[in-house]
């Protein structure tokens, strides 16, 4: 309790800074800000109101993320926290920053390769090259549209023979 129980004064900017420290439960190298899950931070009569959006409708990490945000803010001395789930605009991999994509690759997950505005790719009418995060080869093959979590597809690299996750574009 940095500011003492009775003077919970974080500005909106400081709350954003605090949220930057909260890791995604499934991909701990990324923060919830890297992923673009937090859409809005407001202070209404000194009560923080945070809007978050799910990556997938059934994402089991959402409850956990909500709890982490709540705990972090209560720890700072806020006595009340409002968290709102917002569906529109729907979350898209386009919101993952370039820096976060580099972190994903370093962690062993191939980052999304194209913009979701490219409907032909999204419908599977055109394939994009997915680079192996281990050996950087582009000789890779999709094994399954669905991987270890809803947001990932399963690939295998034909050069180094390693399987890897690909963060698919939605």
């Amino acid at each position, binding site marked *: 309790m940095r500011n003492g129980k009775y003077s919970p004064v974080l500005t909106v900017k400081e709350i954003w800074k605090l949220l930057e420290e909260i890791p995604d439960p499934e991909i701990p190298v990324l923060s919830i800000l890297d992923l673009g899950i937090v859409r809005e931070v407001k202070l209404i009569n000194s009560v923080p109101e945070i809007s978050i959006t*799910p990556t*997938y*409708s*059934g994402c089991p990490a959402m409850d956990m993320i909500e709890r982490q945000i709540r705990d972090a803010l209560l720890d700072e001395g806020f006595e009340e926290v409002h968290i709102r789930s917002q*569906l*529109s605009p*729907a979350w898209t991999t386009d919101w993952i920053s370039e820096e976060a994509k580099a972190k994903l690759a370093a962690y062993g997950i191939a980052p999304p390769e194209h913009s979701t505005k490219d409907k032909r790719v999204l419908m599977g009418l055109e394939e994009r090259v997915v680079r192996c995060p281990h050996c950087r080869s582009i000789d890779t093959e999709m094994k399954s*549209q669905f991987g270890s979590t*809803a947001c990932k597809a399963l690939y295998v690299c034909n050069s180094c023979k390693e399987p890897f996750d690909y963060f698919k574009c*939605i």
Partner: protein
Amino acid sequence: MEIQQAKFEYARRMGDNGLILGHRLSEICGHGPAIETDIAVTNIALDLIGQARNWFTLAARLEGLGKTEDDYAYKRDVYQFGNAILCEQPNGHFGETIARQFYFDAFHFHLLAELCHSADPDFAAIAEKSLKEVTYHLRFSSEWVIRLGDGTEESHTKMNEALKDIWFHTGDLFVRDEVEEVLTNAGVVPDLRKIYTKYMDTVKTTISEANCDMPEGTYFNTGGKKGVHTEYLGFMLAELQFLPRAYPDAQW
């Protein structure tokens, strides 16, 4: 019928479709023919149940009786469910699971694409979110229809039979009633006849690519929207609802 009432019924039916088909698919968890398909089918189940939760939450708000999404999932009996009877059909062999999924995905995909332009912002928001997921579902099921249909002699025979057998349950997806009419007139939901045309295009293209026969039956099993279901739904609910019925208000 009041528009508010129609919106509530529609949102709850959408939730019922997602919950019932999602639960059916979840039965395959740990029993899939290969680990990749097992994981894929379970992921699709998760998406559908997540979407059902969104629709039920909206339904609860529209109904205004202070219910939660769990009330709709756990505290209703067979005749109160409004899902299409296609969704409750048993998994059968993998070709049958895929045939059921493919017909549903083709319908769901085109319906959601239109619902994104709904006059109701809550309907549009859930549709926009769901459509991204369902695009992948349709890709997955279409690819399997083609792989099995255009595969070995045995897989072709089984896929072709499955597409024909399950066809009987697909007409229920396109039944129009008062709820549909009130909402179509208000621009909240698209005209099902328009969806049907797009659905048939998708279905015909994929079935022909799979070298299978386009089913020709015109007599369909219907009744889901009115709560008239096949025998399978009761057995499914017995399992789905066991815990909250045996231990009311259990927390975990």
